[in-house]
């Protein structure tokens, strides 16, 4: 059962990292436009490459 000494902190820290990730995504406004995000996922890459081209 010594394995718990490694596994438990590992599990907790993974959970904590997940939570931090969620809080970061919330803070950066990723839940402000749920309808738009659904479409962005399947949109063509064109707008992105256009944007890069203009820079």
């Amino acid at each position, binding site marked *: 059962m010594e394995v718990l000494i490694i596994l438990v902190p590992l599990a*907790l820290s993974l959970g904590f990292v997940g939570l931090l990730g969620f*809080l970061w995504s919330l803070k950066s406004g990723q839940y402000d*436009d749920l309808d*738009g995000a659904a*479409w962005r996922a399947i*949109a063509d890459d064109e707008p992105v490459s*256009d*944007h890069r081209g203009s820079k």
Partner: protein
Amino acid sequence: MHADIDFSHYLKNTGAGLVHLDLAVEGINCAGCMAKIERNLSNIPDVTSARVNLTDSRLALEWKAGTLEPALFVSRLAELGYKAYPFERDDAETLEAQRAQGLLRRLGVAAFAAMNVMMLSIPVWSGNVSDMLPEQRDFFHWLSALIVLPAAAYSAQPFFSSALSALRARGVNMDVPISIGIVLALATSVIETINHAEHAYFDAAIMLIAFLLAGRYLDQNMRRRTRAFAGNLAALKAETATKFISPTEIRTVPAAAIRPGDIVLLRPGERCAVDGNVIEGRSEVDQSLITGETLPAMVTPGSAVFAGTLVRSGTLRVRASAASGGTLLDEISRLLDHALQARSRYLRLAERASRLYAPVVHATALLTMLGWLAYGASFHDSIVTAIAVLIITCPCALGLAIPAVQTVASGALFGSGVLLNAGDAIERVAEIDRVILDKTGTLTLPELDVANLAEIPDDVVRLAGRLALSSRHPVAAAVARYAGAASPLPDIQEEPGQGVHGLHEGRPIRLGRPSFCGADDLANEILCRDPEASVVAFSHGDSRYAFAVRQRLRPDAAEVVAGLARMGVAVEIVSGDREPAVRLAAEQLGVHEWRAGVSPVDKIARLEELARQGCKVLMVGDGLNDAPALAAAHASMSPVTATHLSRAVADAVFLGERLAPVLAEVKVSRRALRLMRQNLWLAVIYNVLAVPIAIAGLVTPLIAAAAMSGSSIIVMLNALRARAREAV
């Protein structure tokens, strides 16, 4: 026209040399629009970011300060086929958005804690039937406590604070049993863990919090979305005012930028955007949006004018005022305060349910404990069983039962052109048995209509329409609109207060007052037939014609009145307009009960009289004079063209030219209320099944977790049935 608006009010400096502008954009409805707009605008040099928010139909722009004119974006969007208007989030919307985000953050914390605790609970559950060492179980329990206690302390705060404020006001709300359940579950679990006992309820407690927060978030998100849409509507109206920035210099600014004391110029055909007092000029004004009266009134220096007043003949200078000295507005705000207090006494379905629920649940828990004690169980075991009863009855499904239906039903209403202002509006609209309709602007369209178009030859109408384009008078504008005129005639002069005149094909041409065109006889003929009409006369050489311009009923008004009657809802017209106009509208619609010339006080008196008779009234109105009645009625609706105040106090706002959304609102609300009641019964059935197991002392944490999520999922699935859209 919006290109000459002064944008400086809306520009925000983000620091780092960037300027930020938010635009509300009309017509974004698909991913294609989103990609097109973003691609086009981000290709403009010096634009650092252009991002569309599809949910709210908004566009956020950022560019390097001093490089670009904001009007450029508006015109670029116009080229792409979208109308865009600058907007500013109002305080109410910012608050709703912050609350929604706060709830989502708490939901995230609770959900992550629940997931991690579940990972620790499953070994304990399976270990209890196999061969887990008590020390290992205790270790897992302590780990769960380590995760759950801080997470619960943070994420359950909305319930705790709402329960506390209810208790301070010596009342009970849904959050009281929830908070008691959560606190007891956590406290028992800690004590049980210290005592090396077999069962701890950390997982159930945090899961409960997560489910309930999901319900709250749905509710809040619906409100946030409605506010955002209402904000867009305000921006799309693009209310502007012409302000004197020095005694001689004027500038067009957004209405929001006008401060009390500013002097505003009003020209014929303009709608006043502020409340204030006339300091210079005389004019006929159309106050129909404010008083419901369709006949124009005369204002002179010293008269009060209100936002929504349409200036018809002369030019006015108005000093904007915050607290207007106008008796009408004072009276209306007094009535409004009174009416809003009455409404806050309405008890929501959820509150009524929780008033019954809390005592029953707490009595059951107490009886369980006493019963076990009497039966001879130890004090410790009796208390643990009683707490298990509290945990299993914790109103998880109850907390979701109503917000889930509200969210789904408000989505369906959104599709039918109805925006809900208040979360409990659905419940109240579902209960109504009588509709009171205002006439002007509610049953009729806000814009004027030419009534006798059929009697006038087409070519005359077209010519008159082209001439009318040179006038700003609203009656002339109606003629121009109905003639479909696009190209104004050349060399036309305007005679203030009289009309427009010029030469066409070598003959003099005139449009304006009947006396200005020598057509008094024609005008009198029309006024005899239809005393409500405004007459605008047209002469070309020797031929004379008169146009009867009046307000027109909404195209489907009669259908909707009949539809309401079929649903067993009585319909009544109560209007501030004069009797002949109201009688005519009532006859056309087949409404038998109507009242004319009703003041705001009398409107409320009528509502109170009906309330005493036990009627639940849906008030539909748009004018400033309707605002107190809208607030006093059991439920209320406003068209989107209503005055700001009326839209703010109404439970729901409907869009478009048609009245059908009123019917859809009643239908959808009734179905939603049925589903809410069903959901509450489902929650009761779940309790009836689960509570005996808890009383018997057989509830393990596994059963608690399964029962809780099972009942929540059933309630959610049932709520989805509210989605069937109303065919309108």
